[in-house]
């Protein structure tokens, strides 16, 4: 069976990397919205966690986007966040707090700052399956 894929433009990848670098050493976070699984809009969001090893998306920003999605029939296609010093793979915390099963979790690793790595994952019931970013 072919792995799931997510089409992610060069511009969106560059934006995720840029956001990750700007927020380092803290984790950045954001979402990609669109119709029927199409990555149409990227939104940088505020990380309310003050430390360097967690993210919590600003709930008011999240609600505004959820309402906008509802009005135009869009979904949260992807949720991205950065791992400033660790690999691009869902941590135990990522898996425990993966409440948005319908979204692809995109992780940007700056473990090697000059060679950022972007990978995508579907996390359902603590099971992780890679989503190929194409």
């Amino acid at each position, binding site marked *: 069976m072919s792995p799931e894929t997510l089409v992610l433009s060069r511009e969106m990848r560059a934006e995720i990397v840029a956001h990750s670098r700007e927020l380092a050493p803290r*984790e950045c976070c954001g979402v990609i919205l669109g119709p029927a699984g199409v990555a149409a809009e990227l939104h940088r969001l505020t990380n309310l*966690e003050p430390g360097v090893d967690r993210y919590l998306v600003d709930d008011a920003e999240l609600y505004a986007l959820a309402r906008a999605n*509802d009005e135009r029939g869009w979904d*949260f296609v992807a949720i991205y966040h950065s791992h400033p010093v660790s690999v691009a793979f869902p941590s135990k915390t990522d898996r425990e*707090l993966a409440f948005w099963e319908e979204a692809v979790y995109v992780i940007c690793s700056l473990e090697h700052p000059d060679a950022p790595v972007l990978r995508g994952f579907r996390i359902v019931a603590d099971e992780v399956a890679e989503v190929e970013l194409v």
Partner: protein
Amino acid sequence: MFAIREGGVPVTDGGSVTVLVPVPLRQLTGGESKVTGDGETVAALIDDLEGRYPGIKGRICEGDGRIRRFVNVFVNGANVRGADGERTALRAGDEVGIVPAMAGGR
């Protein structure tokens, strides 16, 4: 007992409110992204929803009825956490949004 809203339109407390349902809970609402419910408070509304969509309360609340830590409930755009929580009063025409937290970490 009637309360007068802005604009002079009389409403009855505890009337219908609109509930925005997140994707993870739509399997419980027959796929509906928006439902209506009744209740004078958020807690009463959730009990009302549970009667029609069994299992939904457990996804929103802890066993003691408090809203789960990683679930946000908004009433007319304001998060009830840090305010009156599940005791927040509702009026007919209110909009309630249920939005799971987006969180994670290293």
